[in-house]
């Protein structure tokens, strides 16, 4: 079966700084794929390259068997940025409507999707408020709703649950799992280990390199450890040793 997202030897440098080093990733359709790593490890850079908002210095990115960047492809990708990029002087409703009209949606579908997405993130009662008056958590939720607005085949979520209270986080994860059951592919970045447990596949990123990948269970059995946190530390440690030897 062909992969939904495939990165082949993707490297990225900003000036002299190598932020990503020869990354290979395959994400199969219908999976929740987690990119886990400390902040500054290159996760955001990686997902931006997948969406096509940034160019890799070398290497190739294919999404749905199409070379990135591609405008048509963006119709099938829902992206939630790490930093909320919202129009503060517009209401939640207007933000949703604006982004919805950037996708090819009929009027009825648009209305339906706005209601659905707002309800999902529990923002329906706040839709007529200006985003200016939203709390940090509400802004995150609105960003997530915008990512879902056009019912995309692929969801790329950059640290979606940061600043969201545990209860809502739980309901968001329930929704992610439900979306997966609909056959959607989800790529999620996080630095929280317990979220990593919920992914089907994981790639651990450190300093722009993938230090380990596989399902949470495989990773744990491979290192013979029960917590992913320790896997991360151990995989990182081995890497360091290898580096020292080579």
């Amino acid at each position, binding site marked *: 079966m062909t992969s939904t997202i495939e990165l082949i030897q993707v490297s990225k440098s900003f000036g002299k700084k190598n932020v990503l080093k020869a990354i290979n990733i395959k994400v199969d359709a219908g999976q929740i794929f987690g990119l886990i790593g400390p902040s500054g490890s290159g996760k955001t850079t990686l997902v931006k390259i997948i969406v096509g908002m940034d*160019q890799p210095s070398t290497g190739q990115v294919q999404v749905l068997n199409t070379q990135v960047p591609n405008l048509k492809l963006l119709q099938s990708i829902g*992206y939630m940025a790490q930093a909320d*990029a919202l129009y*503060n002087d*517009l209401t939640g409703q207007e933000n949703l409507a604006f982004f919805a*009209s*950037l996708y090819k949606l009929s009027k009825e579908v648009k209305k339906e999707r706005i209601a659905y997405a707002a309800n999902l993130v529990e923002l329906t009662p706040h839709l007529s408020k200006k985003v200016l008056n939203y709390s940090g958590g509400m802004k995150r939720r609105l960003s997530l709703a915008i990512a879902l607005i056009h019912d995309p085949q692929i969801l790329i979520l950059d640290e979606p649950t940061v600043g969201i209270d545990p209860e809502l986080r739980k309901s968001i994860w329930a929704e992610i799992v439900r979306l997966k059951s609909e056959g959607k592919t989800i790529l999620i970045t996080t630095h929280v280990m317990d979220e990593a447990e919920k992914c089907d596949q994981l790639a651990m990123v450190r300093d722009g390199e993938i230090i380990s990948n596989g399902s949470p269970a495989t990773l744990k059995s491979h290192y013979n450890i029960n917590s992913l946190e320790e896997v991360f530390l151990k995989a990182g440690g081995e890497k360091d040793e290898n580096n020292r030897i080579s």
Partner: protein
Amino acid sequence: MRTIALVKRVCIQMVRDKRTLALMMVAPLVILTLLHFLISSDPNTPRLGVNGAEESLIDELKEKELKVIQFDQLKSPNQLIKVKDLDGVLQMEGDQLNLTLTNDDPSKAKLLQTKVMQAISTVNAKEQATNLAHFVEDIAQQQPNAPINLNQIKMPEMSTSYIYGNSETTFFDQLSPILVGFFVFFFVFLISGIGLLRERTTGTLDRLMATPIQRKDIVFGYLIGYGLFAIIQTIIVVFYATKVLDIMLIGSLWNVILINLALALVALLLGILLSAFANSEFQMMQFIPIAIVPQVFFAGILPFEGMPDWMQIVAKFMPMYYGGNALVDVMYKGFGLNDIKNELFVLLGFALIFIVLNIVALKKYRKI
């Protein structure tokens, strides 16, 4: 379709931002009004102190719209000027006339000097005429038989006619077309530039690149969105200037609006283009002295012919040079559309180039 979504959004944001709206619509009117009253108000008549001059000269000076104040004795002119708030003092010492000018306002001093010289030469001419008449009489008495045909020289009547403007024309009449264009240019530049800049700094422009919007959709969305407000602003400013301030408008009002719209278009595109090179509102303001203020100098306020060659070349790259000339042509000289079409085409050319540059500049965000 996506462009329309962007236009709608820009409009909502603009209407909500009352301050910016007021800046765009009202500020040009306030500045124009102030300048109108400042520049077109009559300069007050120069005050001249006079000491020891003959009666004929004083009469002549009074003819010249000068406030003449006579002093019987004079200590020091400097002292007198300060105490009596004079613009100059004229003293007769023997055969010598001394004029002391305050010169705190050089243009007023020049005017005063010219008037005094004119008065003196008029008096001289009159004296000469009387002397001549006496001379002729004397000769006639001594040689009664000789026919003397000395025709009195008739002073030629002079009437002045004006190709542009009339005797009432003030500096403001020539300046105001340029100012109208400049304010449209300036405010449209600032507001559209900061509009797109905000989109950059809040990350929403980056976020847009994750949607299927095309770079040209963004440029045209901004162009049409802010363009609508620029049109409203242009119409308000032009109507206010011509109907309320009664600025001289000889040509067609529609041509004035047309030129201003072309200027607004260029300003809008220049604004969003330069915003690509600014990281904050303050950096956007830094473009004003570099990209905007010099435009005024080349817009026709300073005489173009007097500029050094290289400056004349620089002027050709300034949109306001074409806009200012076209506006003076229509408003002050009454030229028609046919006379200004070249200027309009050049402005549209600027706009076209800026559109392309804007679309290219957005490549920084997404290659396609």
